[in-house]
């Protein structure tokens, strides 16, 4: 059934459709509408679960971990400073191998203060052992939450679904709401082998010797690596059930492209428009959308970019002293590529600044001119600034 709603509300719908029994969260702009919508449904009885109103994001995550270990599906939503505060618990979640699913609304990190879109908050958490998806719009966010549960509950790792503040969280668009029966068919009840057993009491997170720590980290790595294949498989099953799918990366018109623009999140949508326009004007430009960021789908990216010579990665994030984070990851993934493409890092949309199709066109035309590799990122500002 089609509905007209914001990205935040699309995520709330996903949580309801997944019959999540426990939601622990703390409100923060721009994520609060998710929290409010779920609260509203809890009050009206439409949500078959409970909202734990915790005193902080740190506690919200701690609650999700503990609840998950009792064997129930859990959800939280956060953003920016909230996810930064949560950081310690994010490690606990992956270390405890709990399939918590979190929606993160990408918002810049202070200081200075602001509420605007920037992916640094979740990308700063890339080493916490969470599966990470970046979504283009509300529809994809809704679908990704459902997929995230399927994947997370199979590999016992937590998963994060990110959308950008305002451009997705607050944009109202047409969203196709899946039927409850479809979701029930797609998502079986959760089963956690290491859940707490009342008859066999024990405790998790004991002190372990070095070798044992290494063993479990290595096992987690094996599980995490399996996500690349599993996510594709789950996405295919999702396509079979719901008629939509996304892949873990999405190449668009790359086969003959002289330049491939790589994007993640909402800029992808705008880039689609820009590239179509450039193609009409005769430029051979392609687009690669990276949807799965952790685990980083290096093989899929190498495959998609085979034979390409020039790549422009547009990042709405910036690692001070490094550069665009997607670009860093992509360069590392392409290091074994026989094509040795030139990969340029463009920084655009930082702090929620507008990324318009013309800006992406400028990036493409700029890349066409370049023949020498360049390490430093190129900041794209508005005309005249």
């Amino acid at each position, binding site marked *: 059934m089609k509905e007209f709603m914001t990205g935040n509300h699309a995520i709330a719908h996903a949580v309801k459709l997944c019959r999540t029994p426990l939601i622990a969260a703390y409100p923060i702009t721009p994520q609060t509408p998710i929290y409010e919508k779920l609260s509203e449904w809890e009050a009206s009885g439409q949500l078959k679960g409970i909202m734990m109103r915790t005193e902080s994001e740190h506690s919200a995550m701690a609650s999700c971990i503990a609840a998950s270990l009792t064997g129930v599906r859990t959800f939280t939503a956060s953003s920016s400073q909230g996810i930064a505060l949560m950081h310690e618990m994010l490690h606990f979640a992956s270390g405890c191998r709990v399939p918590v699913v979190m929606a993160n609304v990408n918002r810049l990190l202070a200081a200075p203060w602001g509420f605007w879109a920037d992916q640094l908050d979740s990308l700063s958490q890339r080493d916490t052992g969470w599966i990470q998806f970046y979504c283009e719009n509300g529809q994809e966010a809704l679908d990704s939450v459902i997929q995230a549960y399927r994947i997370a509950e199979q590999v016992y790792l937590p998963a994060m679904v990110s959308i950008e503040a305002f451009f997705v969280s607050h944009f109202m668009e047409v969203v196709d709401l899946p039927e409850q029966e479809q979701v029930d068919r797609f998502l079986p009840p959760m089963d956690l*082998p*290491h859940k707490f057993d009342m008859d066999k009491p*024990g405790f998790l997170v*004991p002190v372990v010797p070095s070798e044992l720590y290494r063993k479990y980290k290595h*096992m987690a790595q094996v599980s995490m690596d399996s996500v690349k294949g599993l996510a594709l498989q789950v996405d295919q099953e999702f396509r079979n059930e719901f008629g939509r799918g996304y892949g873990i990366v999405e190449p668009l018109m790359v086969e003959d492209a002289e330049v491939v623009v790589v994007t993640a999140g909402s800029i992808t949508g705008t880039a689609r428009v820009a590239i179509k326009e450039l193609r009409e004007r005769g430029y051979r430009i392609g687009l690669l959308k990276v949807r799965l960021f952790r685990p980083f789908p290096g093989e899929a990216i190498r495959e998609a970019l085979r034979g390409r010579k020039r790549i422009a990665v547009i990042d709405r994030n910036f690692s001070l002293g490094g550069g665009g984070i997607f670009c860093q990851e992509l360069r590392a993934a392409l290091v074994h590529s026989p094509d040795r493409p030139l990969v340029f890092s463009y920084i655009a949309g930082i702090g929620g600044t507008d990324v318009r199709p013309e800006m992406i066109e400028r990036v493409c035309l700029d890349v066409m001119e370049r023949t020498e590799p360049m390490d430093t990122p190129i900041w794209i500002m508005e005309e005249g600034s």
Partner: protein
Amino acid sequence: MKMDFRHSSELVIPISYGSTEVIETGRWGFQKPETVLMTAPCQEACPAGNPIPQFLYLAAEGRYDEALRALLRENPFPGVCGRVCFHPCEARCHRARYDESVSICAMERYVFDATSDRSVDIRPHRNHHSKQVAVVGSGPAGLSCAYFLGLLGHQVTVFEARTEPGGVMRWGIPEYRLPKSVLKREVRRIVNLGIEIKTGVKVGGDLSFDQLMDFDAVFLSPGAGSSLPLKIDGEALKAVWRGKELLERINSGGRIRLGREVIVIGGGNTAMDVARSALRLGSRVTVAYRRSRDEMPAIQEEIREAEEEGVRFEFLIQPVRVSLLKNGRLAVKFQRMKLGKPDQSKRPKPIPVEGGFVKLEADALVEAVGEAVEWSWIPQRLMSRGLIDVGPSLLTAQDKVFAGGDAIDQPRTVVTAIASGKKAAISIDLYLRGLSSDDFLSRIEVGNQGSLSMEAYIAGIEQGRWPEVKDVVPYERINTLYFEPSGRIRERKLSRDKAVKGFSEVNRGFSPNQAHASASRCFTCGTCNYCSNCYFFCPEGVISLDPLLQSRAVDLEHCKGCGTCARACPRGVVEMREVS
């Protein structure tokens, strides 16, 4: 590749099925919490040493039977005290400094009213030293002494000259303040302990003082039953009454007609009882007192209730002569008085105003200016200035004879009489065991004002477990942040119109909801009420509480000594002490 971990959870994450209990984290700390039970100020102020925080805690929990049992360990008359006590406890209540004091007296009454004695399980302790003790007089002092001696396992015989036991509780205090049924229940409980009460036996008549010496010990508590005369002209007139005698007549069910207007002389509780009884007999009543209102020795509430019921007061006048008028009424001539310097009683001495006289007319005059001990049967060497002379242990000048109540030099209230009965019982028990009271009374004190704990005495003398003497909780030790301000709850009362129509009890006590709210206001200073604050705040989970068994324990092997529990305790029960 699909991972399958379903065979064993160990393949996903390490789980320890052992216990961390073996790690004695308690050794890391350099201080440990100690449960430091302390005496509440109310308890110290109660002459009978009532366990006020304990009984209020139990009442707040709705455990009224247990609350009654707690009270009965220290006081055989909760039903009486809950009605007639002047409750010095409430003046010392810490809650009074926070908002308003807890209605302790009314709660004592409620506990009595809400229970029956069927659940009371008081049995005498087995006592290998069991002896025969005689008690003379069955007022609050005599019956308390008998009760506690009975608890301690002695054989007690009470001699009572009147037809029924109770003394002032039976014959002095009017029915509208203390219904006879209440007293009956209290006395029955005492008799059930195996106490023999011989009524209608007058020592000095039916039984000689010397015959008492056949007992192993004797407690004299004859009370102060005879009203003092004013020693003025016209006192012998038929319409002039003595307060005590009048009250006794009323309490005997006699039909009395005082006439339309009655003057009551005096400012004490007897005067108030007389005045309010006279109102109920249909008279208009004026109380004449030689000092001013501030100096009246009666309980403030009694004065206020008398005023509310319509008793008029004339202050600073003293009768000098009563004469009979032709119409049969009385003419009373009063001397006007003024207040002078404080006298022996530390109150301003009333001095006559020269030439100042007032004349009032009335149909009857009641003198209620004080009572004296009727001591014709007591050897004179035991007496001093009209009272029985006693030492600190209440021993008289004669070996094995002890005394208490209104017949000795102490405030004449029911609760002080009970206190002296308790003290005498302990002194007698020690005497019968051949022990010196000097060595023991100080070990069972409740606070520093002379109240004693029978529970502490029994634990010490029977089991050798003499408890540590507890300090009184200072207000600063109460963590008032944990309490919400709330107003004192007042008892329900009969309306004035209904009250003065007869002798029905005026005070109707608390409703169950009022009682719960009222008991819940208690800070339970110095007493753990299992509020669970320490339990919830303890980051180590090493505190265990059992409200039913009233136990509070800390697993010291795993307590790191953070001190959170001491900070979180609302009532100052937990103290951190350095580990030596």
